[in-house]
């Protein structure tokens, strides 16, 4: 079974790399493809492409990845962020807790967050391109939700790409950061969590875009849990689906309140006061030896920690410092 799994993954990557993910392969509309295929296939049946052969598994993994780890991560993220409502220090402590993983953090981030999100997003785009939304003719609630699920998915994808750039910068090697920072990227510094967050959330445009993006994510997750339950056969009868719908609505509303609170909290941060608190906490950690200056510098705001300190960090490594709550 392990061999099968490995072979499968190799195939998957190869096939994505060589053919690109064609929207027609996973979705219904194969008109053009098959016309061409048919020309060669009249005598002998050509084997279906890899993605088509494993359509079921890919779609189920897509469904699963939306909940675990992507959805679960989103809940943790929003909760962490909402802790800023208590105080800047609480938020900073939560961020420190995440960063206590140290050098393992990037691995965890890529395996459990970035790759699953990318997988979910790319397959999601393929799925969207295979459908023909028809809410114009059929204005049923569930059909509107079908269309909204796709719309919010696309918004969420764009938002997350921007959000990761905005806060995190995508990559952390200095050459890139010199490009990203002037473009408004990589605004967040984990050891100055609240203050950099507060600074990034200034004005009205950015918070407004965040509100749209985050609410899209929340709808997409809550509605996605409901459809996932049908897809996997958890809730079957219309009555069970109705009950599940109530639960998912509660989850969605809860997450919406949580996320909007976090956003409101971020907007209200007094940057200078927060920075003072963060710096005190940082000094204390240095004093106890919990952190050392050399490996911490790149996680501090530029004016708090000089550029020279971070140069010792392995710059060529793709250092993704997520977990700072995005």
């Amino acid at each position, binding site marked *: 079974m392990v061999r099968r799994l490995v072979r499968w993954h190799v195939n998957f990557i190869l096939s994505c790399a060589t053919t690109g993910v064609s929207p027609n392969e996973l979705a219904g509309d194969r008109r053009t493809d098959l016309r061409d295929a048919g020309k060669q296939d009249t005598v002998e049946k050509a084997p279906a492409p890899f993605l088509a052969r494993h359509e079921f598994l890919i779609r189920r993994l897509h469904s699963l990845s939306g909940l675990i780890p992507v959805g679960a991560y989103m809940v943790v993220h929003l909760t962490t962020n909402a802790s800023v409502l208590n105080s800047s220090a609480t938020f900073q402590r939560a961020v420190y807790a995440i960063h206590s993983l140290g050098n393992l953090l990037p691995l965890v981030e890529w395996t459990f967050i970035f790759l699953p999100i990318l997988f979910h997003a790319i397959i999601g785009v393929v799925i969207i391109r295979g459908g023909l939304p028809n809410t114009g003719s059929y204005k049923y609630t569930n059909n509107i939700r079908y269309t909204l699920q796709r719309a919010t998915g696309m918004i969420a994808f764009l938002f997350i790409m921007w959000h990761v750039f905005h806060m995190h910068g995508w990559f952390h090697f200095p050459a890139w950061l010199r490009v990203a920072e002037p473009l408004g990227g990589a605004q967040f510094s984990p050891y100055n969590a609240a203050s950099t967050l507060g600074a990034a959330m200034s004005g009205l445009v950015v918070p407004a875009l965040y509100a749209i993006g985050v609410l899209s994510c929340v709808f997409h997750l809550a509605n996605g849990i409901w459809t996932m339950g049908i897809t996997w*056969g958890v809730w079957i009868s219309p009555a069970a689906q109705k009950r599940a719908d109530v639960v998912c609505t509660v989850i969605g509303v809860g997450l919406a309140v949580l996320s909007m609170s976090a956003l409101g909290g971020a907007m209200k941060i007094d940057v200078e006061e927060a920075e003072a608190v963060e710096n005190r906490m940082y000094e204390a950690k240095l004093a106890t030896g919990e952190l050392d200056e050399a490996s911490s510098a790149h996680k501090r705001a530029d004016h708090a920690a000089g550029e020279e300190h971070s140069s010792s960090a392995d710059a060529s490594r793709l250092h993704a410092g997520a977990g700072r709550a995005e």
Partner: protein
Amino acid sequence: MAEEAREGRSSKDHFEVRILRQNGPGQSSYWERHRVKYEHDMNVISVLQRIAAQAETVDGKSVAPVCWDCNCLEEVCGACSMNINGRVRQACSALVDRLLEDNPSEIELQPMTKFPVIRDLMVDRSRMFRGLTRVKGWVPVDSYENMGPGPRQTRATQEVAYPLSECMSCGCCQEACPQYTKIELTRQEGESEEDFSARKNEAFDRGFVGAHAISQAMLFNSNPTGKNAAGERLDALMAEGGIQVCGNAQNCVEVCPKNIPLTTSIARAGRATTLHALKKWFDE
């Protein structure tokens, strides 16, 4: 009233019908207007019958009768599905009085969009029947000899199975499904009938199988004898174009003229395929 009629709008004793016509596969479609005399208790079939008999448009132009498919006229054969005022349904049960209540100015008829048009309102739904073959929609009995009665079944089993077996393959669920997209192939020069049919079937087998076929698979998987081929049916539902293509828009169950619990079947198939996949991964 006379004025209204002259202006080409529906009046009390006449009403207008706008039909999207197409002379043959691959040709462009065009709208055509007909005026029909109002009678009591009319349905869309009787409207089309009148149009066929008069064979003349609003402008007095002689035209070929509109081509359409129908048979039983009491909503059990599934033949007369079409888009009426923008929504797919059976033409026989579409009563003119109701349609005019919703839209007094005219009745609009269009062929289904998810199946290739043969002519006018008539479409080729062979893909639906192919779907039934795909999921092995039958009870695999040994023979038709006299072997006594079938296995005894509870009333509860029958009450679950019966609604599913009312499916008349009308195609409404596919037409309304945003995940079901049209597959239209044309016969190539020099291609034999058999080759073309094989090529079509292969294309159909890769397209989304659709709610009706998923539901039929569940019907036969619940039959005491049909169960014996349950694994094969689930394999079919997990192949390309299988149940995974469903996007849970649930239009199928809304438009089904027989009120078949299609989304229940889909969820049931979802569970069955989940378990079947696990079984295949860990047992085989």
